[in-house]
């Protein structure tokens, strides 16, 4: 099929939109509400073009063969500028003083400052300890609402009111903390104006870093090392592990540990649990590393709570190990340690504050920063990541295998767990540890694997709407032995705390980087991690021991979100 855009003859495919066809041919049309991972809703009207003499929005108008499209005329430029002007005029002045998608659209539309006076004076919603909302910055693009509804099937937020009083609210006007919100933060990931953000802890961490007499320990999650670079001007999928370690030290942290270590630890505990459950006929086993998924399951499918692994998430295992095992080694009380984690995730902020996450007697993790917040901290401190030399993680919680690395991507926990579970059941290692059937961006992956003559059915879901479809099938009687669920599309590399403007292309680049970290490791199976073995020998005993249960496992509420 062919059409012309501004007189240029171009090829296009049936089902494509005008915007897609134009962008493929490097013709840029400003957009605001459009997001490549969501359905176009045509709310902002900033992408106006002329198609066969009619003004249409390019984001939601399908191409037709022989269409004549004009994107660049005086009239269209003025209309697009006016549309952006109306939107820019509606937000608080601070919103247009920073770099975001709105100010970017203003630049593209040739609008220096808004023409009309801002009028919004709305209350903020900081009720959740994962996600904050400031409607004075909101341009009602609808991305957050669609994400919460279509991608996550949670429907915690909605539009309420009409005309210029319309705003995003918790369902039935409730503060976010009282809604079904699972803290995944996908809303903050897609928000173009930072009206929805993570519950910020940057200032708290800055203050904590200045505190004397405390040991400042930090851990970084598997996916942060392949995404942080994007926030700081590097190409998607750049692996910056060593640079982050060096930069964190420069920022004032004394000790930098690797969450990949505790991911290995999680796998050892969880695989052990899986083997026990198989023996006891108590499958399926659901993974437990994603706190947003846990909140989802506990609220919408409480009948499956007993099926969730009791293993804590890698963040919380690390948190417990730092303030017990490591504190003991250093000979200091847990209260003398400030433990910070850097996560791709907003739900981890809430998880760290759960009442039961105090294995050391005090709160195991004191502060959680998202990838975006760490970038902000580095910027504030004037630390240029690109120029940093590479440093190594500290011992004894810094060593990891490739299995720990792939925790960051959908299917990774399944792959890592099967590498170890196979060994535990079969008594020998997998021939090919690259379990390709767990990989890829398909929303629901299902497969069978034979271990010791027995067939095991497994499923991997990412995006809670996909999880819901799977759970409904299980409810109707389908049986799986092992199920991995991650709330965010793509897994943690697409997490709610990751760099803005995330799309499937960037998620794929990050995934490739994660698999590169895995294949670059000498050890690629969690049970081969020497530091993990040492931790068991010196401190934990054996997998599933009383001590391991006390420190590395958790319980769940009977119904509803964990507090």
């Amino acid at each position, binding site marked *: 099929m062919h059409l012309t855009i501004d007189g240029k003859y171009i090829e296009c495919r049936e089902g494509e939109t005008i915007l897609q066809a134009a962008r493929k041919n490097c013709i840029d049309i400003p957009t605001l509400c459009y997001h490549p991972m969501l359905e176009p809703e*045509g709310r902002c*009207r900033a992408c106006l073009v002329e198609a066969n003499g009619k*003004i249409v929005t390019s984001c939601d108008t399908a191409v037709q063969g022989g269409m004549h499209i004009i994107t660049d005329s005086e009239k269209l430029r003025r209309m697009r500028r*006016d549309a952006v002007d*109306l939107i820019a*005029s509606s937000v608080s002045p601070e919103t247009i003083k920073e770099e975001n998608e709105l100010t970017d659209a203003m630049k593209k539309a040739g609008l220096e400052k808004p023409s009309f006076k801002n009028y919004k004076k709305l209350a903020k919603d900081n009720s959740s300890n994962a996600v904050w909302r400031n409607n004075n910055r909101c341009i*009602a693009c609808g991305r957050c609402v669609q994400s919460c509804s279509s991608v996550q099937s949670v429907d915690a937020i909605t539009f309420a*009111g009409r005309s*210029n009083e*319309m705003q995003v609210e918790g369902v039935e006007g409730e503060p976010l903390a009282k809604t079904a919100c699972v803290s995944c933060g996908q809303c903050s990931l897609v928000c173009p104006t930072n009206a929805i953000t993570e519950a910020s802890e940057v200032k708290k961490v800055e203050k904590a870093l200045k505190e004397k007499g405390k040991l400042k320990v930090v851990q970084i999650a598997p996916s942060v090392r392949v995404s942080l670079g994007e926030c700081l001007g590097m190409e998607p999928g750049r692996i910056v592990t060593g640079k982050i370690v060096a930069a964190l030290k420069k920022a004032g942290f004394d000790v930098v540990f690797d969450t990949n270590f505790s991911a290995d630890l999680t796998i050892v505990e969880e695989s052990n649990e899986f083997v026990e459950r198989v023996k006891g006929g108590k499958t399926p086993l659901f993974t437990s590393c994603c706190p947003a998924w846990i909140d989802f399951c506990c609220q919408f499918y409480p009948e499956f709570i007993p099926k969730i692994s009791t293993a804590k998430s890698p963040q919380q295992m690390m948190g417990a190990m730092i303030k017990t095992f490591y504190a003991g080694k250093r000979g200091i009380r847990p209260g003398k340690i400030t433990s910070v984690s850097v996560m791709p995730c907003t739900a981890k902020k809430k998880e760290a504050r759960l009442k039961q996450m105090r294995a050391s007697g005090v709160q195991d993790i004191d502060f959680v920063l998202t990838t975006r917040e760490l970038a902000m901290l580095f910027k504030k401190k004037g630390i240029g990541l690109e120029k940093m030399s590479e440093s190594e993680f500290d011992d004894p919680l810094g060593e990891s295998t490739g299995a720990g690395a792939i925790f960051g991507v959908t299917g990774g926990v399944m792959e890592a767990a099967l590498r170890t579970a196979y060994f535990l059941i079969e008594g020998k290692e997998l021939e090919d540890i690259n379990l390709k059937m767990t990989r890829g961006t398909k929303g629901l992956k299902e497969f069978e694997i034979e271990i010791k003559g027995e067939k095991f059915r497994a499923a991997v879901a990412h995006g809670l709407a996909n999880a819901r479809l799977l759970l409904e099938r299980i409810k109707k009687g389908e049986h799986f032995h092992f199920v991995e669920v991650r709330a965010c599309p793509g897994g943690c590399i697409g997490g709610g705390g990751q760099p803005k403007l995330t799309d499937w292309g960037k998620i794929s680049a990050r995934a490739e980087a994660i698999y590169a970290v895995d294949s670059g490791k000498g050890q690629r199976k969690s049970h081969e991690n020497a530091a993990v073995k040492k931790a068991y020998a010196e401190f934990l005993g054996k997998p599933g021991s009383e001590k391991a249960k006390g420190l590395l496992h958790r319980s769940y509420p009977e119904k509803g979100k964990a507090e």
Partner: protein
Amino acid sequence: MNSALLEASNFEGLKKALEKTPEEIIAIVKESSLKGRGGAGFPTGLKWEAALKAGGEGERFVLCNADEGEPGTFKDRLILTKAPLNVIEGILIACRVLDAKKAFIYLRGEYAHHRTALDRAIKKAKPYLGANGIDISVVLGEGAYICGDETAILNSIEGKRPEPRKKPPYPAEKGLYGKPTIVNNVETFAMVPLIFLGKFDSNKRLCSLSGDLHKAGVFEISEGKQAGTLLELAEPIGIPKALCFGASGGIIPFDPCMELTEANVKERGAFPGTWSVIVINHEHSIVELCRSIQAFFVHESCGYCAPCREGNLRMLELLEKISKGKGTKKDLQILRELSALLESSCFCALGRSAPLHVSTALRHFFWEFEEKCT
């Protein structure tokens, strides 16, 4: 008032229609030249044909739009009280076309007191409903102007936020619950049985007259009637200056010799819609009229798209400023630019017609605005 358009069919029209096949019914409706009476004026026969031809399995629906929310429009209310059975017959004939078993009447919330008459009519039609396994439900609106838009009604009935849907797909293809749905206005359905009785005249329609009149009300007009002749029937108060077509149709100067045709109204930049005419006499300021209509749109914008949500508010601010004598020539320029933006960029037809009163007033009564500006 008495009009042949309100003559009771007493099931005679329905009986005749039920003898026909869906294709025959569509051919007859097409032949009649009946066009939608809800404002957009789309040929009814074509709409029904599109719904019949729409693919897909499962249910089909018929929906009567009785959310008569356009200011100055009240002809559907008259039909609902005087000839509700004709509406039911029209709905049943549409059900016959689609083999639909479920029909809805979306009744304007403020018309709740007309529900009794409707329910009585539905009860009276029971033999025809039961025999064909059809159920008609009356759904009460909650007072949103946007629900005059057929796709917003679909969302409302489905329990969703009443916002318009992107067209295409049209309701005829993907309507209620994604199924082919015939959506027509009250007056349109009421005309259908008359077609089968040979009593329908496509040149005649109902017109709501209000404003500076002694005898405001519903009148029957025929295509090409002179504006002066029509107004005489309603006895104007003072000297008419302008005709205002509801809130969304625009304002044109009153010309007694102007023949009331859609083309003539359109030529003046306005749109007759449902032919609700608000007569404005010389004592009223057009600027004030625009400000008042604008306040209506600021209240009623659903908020879905930015130009309607934010643009109407800014237009009201400008009109308030001008109305207070504080406006400038530049403000008039911005007002013109905003109304042009809304007319061509809003998501739905209601949003696109919201600024029509300003653009037509600036065209025909510019001096009234200029006089108030410095």
